[in-house]
């Protein structure tokens, strides 16, 4: 049976292509429809090719404003969660203190708890405190759930770090600050970077918690959700495609840098 034999030989490739297709198909659709010129308000049927939306990405009222709010929140939440999370990770791995075990498990709660439950309880908390819902409440909420991801990523890295490396640095005339900057931080960096990337992605596209605690502020995911009720502007696809391309370019650049570094060393 030549067909069966051919299938057997190429099974891995076929499986790979199918998986990639499964992962990328939504992105392809989003990209294709960013060049659409829909009739009416919904961008669900292909009509004709057009660059209108790409020429005027902010042509829809309030969309770019919401995008800017989302980006700001994502940047600050990433910064806050990464700094706090890194410090927490070091504390949890390096020091023995009271309630260390409790903190260790509590820090994972935001990851394990259903988002809607957390969103509702946060809202209750904010209301009881009399906090003004908006940018700051969103930011506080985002830092909180991003923290657990940063701690998970950084802790794994710090735990696998040989404590003798820092001793070696101290032995080689590096004071505490130098040891941290020259040895500890660079070795923990991949974990910290992974935590930061996760935080950015999670904060940028969070909907449930944001929606509960936003007050009158509208973030980009909230804008997309809201417009989906009334009609979807093509610009949403433009932003989606741009974000996707940006991510792809970033990954490619980091791969290139890594490759060049390795080939230099070899």
């Amino acid at each position, binding site marked *: 049976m030549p067909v069966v034999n051919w299938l057997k030989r190429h099974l891995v490739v076929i499986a790979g292509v199918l998986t990639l297709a499964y992962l990328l198909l939504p992105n392809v659709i989003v990209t294709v429809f960013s060049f659409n010129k829909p009739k009416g308000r919904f961008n669900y049927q292909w009509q004709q090719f057009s660059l209108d939306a790409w020429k005027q990405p902010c042509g829809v009222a309030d969309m770019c404003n919401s995008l800017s709010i989302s980006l700001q929140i994502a940047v600050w939440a990433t910064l806050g969660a990464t700094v706090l999370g890194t410090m927490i990770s070091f504390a949890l791995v390096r020091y023995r203190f009271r309630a260390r075990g409790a903190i260790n498990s509590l820090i994972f709660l935001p990851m394990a708890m259903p988002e809607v439950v957390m969103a509702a309880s946060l809202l209750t908390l904010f209301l009881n405190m009399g906090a003004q819902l908006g940018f700051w409440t969103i930011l506080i909420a985002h830092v909180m759930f991003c923290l657990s991801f940063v701690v998970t990523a950084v802790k794994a890295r710090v735990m696998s770090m*040989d404590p003798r490396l820092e001793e*070696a640095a*101290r*032995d080689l*005339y590096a004071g505490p600050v130098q040891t941290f900057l020259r040895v500890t931080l660079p070795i923990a*960096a991949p974990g910290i970077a992974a935590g930061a990337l996760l935080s950015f992605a999670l904060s940028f596209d969070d909907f449930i918690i944001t929606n509960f605690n936003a007050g009158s502020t509208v973030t980009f995911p909230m804008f997309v959700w809201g417009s989906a009720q009334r009609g979807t502007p093509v610009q949403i696809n433009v932003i989606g495609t741009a974000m996707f391309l940006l991510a792809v370019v970033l990954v490619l650049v980091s791969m290139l840098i890594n490759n060049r570094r390795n080939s*230099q060393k070899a």
Partner: protein
Amino acid sequence: MTTDNSGDVRLSGIGKTYGAFTAVHPLDLTVPQGSFFALLGASGCGKTTTLRMIAGLEEPTCGTVHLGDQNVTHLPPYKRPVNTVFQSYALFPHLDIFENVAFGLRRRGIKSVKKQVEEMLDLVQLGEQARKKPHQLSGGQQQRVAVARALINHPKVLLLDEPLGALDLKLRRQMQLELKRIQTEVGITFIHVTHDQEEAMTMADTVAVMNGGRVEQLGSPTDLYENPGTTFVANFLGTSNLIEAEIDARSGDDIVLKAGGDKLVLPAARCSAPTPAGGRVLVGIRPEKISLAHADDAGAVPEGRNRLTGRIVDASFIGVSTQYVVESRACAELSVYVQNVERDARLVPGADVVLHWSPAHTFGLDAAQDIDAGTEEEVAA
């Protein structure tokens, strides 16, 4: 020899306790400038803790550390003119070999490091590998990087914490010679921690044998081997036959002993235990100092030698020598190593034999000690 003593290491009453556990009992130790000194002992004997207190990585509970005339007890490690070669090397994984070696120089604010680093890498024959990362090198190469990284700082003292433990046997031999060569070349004080008695004896001028947080004995390798002062040293450095004996009489400089009905002679100067008449001592003799004769040739054994009769229980042919286990009245298991010069075909398990050796090779130990201290079984337990 110079009169410079800035590389002397003087430990006075230095000790370390962790809660209720005493890792190092207060001890005094002086390592003279330029010597190759080994701290030898089984794991958990306090040798690494002692080393770390010299490095400044561990704060002593009591006592002081002096480098030359300077009291460094409370100086942090980065302010001590001492560098360490760590167990498993602790090379910085994110830096290449060049930057690893340059690390100490850069931290001290030295700008032009290129020439020095290249010279140092040439000294350890790694000039070609300067731009590789540590994980791209073999174990032996990593070891040499670790040595280079420490030596480039011209420390007063170089501390080596089991530096060869991760290498295979052949490479270890090679690195032992290499380290010894480097030490002779640079002339600085080396303090070497190891659990390998052969390594300590081949490399060091002076060996301190540690056990249970104390220094059991200190001396040159030959001195320790020929005149062990405790059963631990006798068993941990090589192999010893220890025979329980009763003191019978004293004749001149010798002590006459009774062991299981046989008479043994021990020079009084070679006995580290008190020797009252009727008291007990452990008589020690190294397996390679014993000669073995078949019982039929008993008449040919010269007068004046210590002799025991027994029966061969086991014989293993090693190549350069044959190792016999002999059972006798005085001792259930005596090891005897015989060089394979002329092999006597009658010496097989079951044969009756006479063991004999020169009294001058006999040593005496306090019988109150654990006779098995420092043997492999005891160390493993």
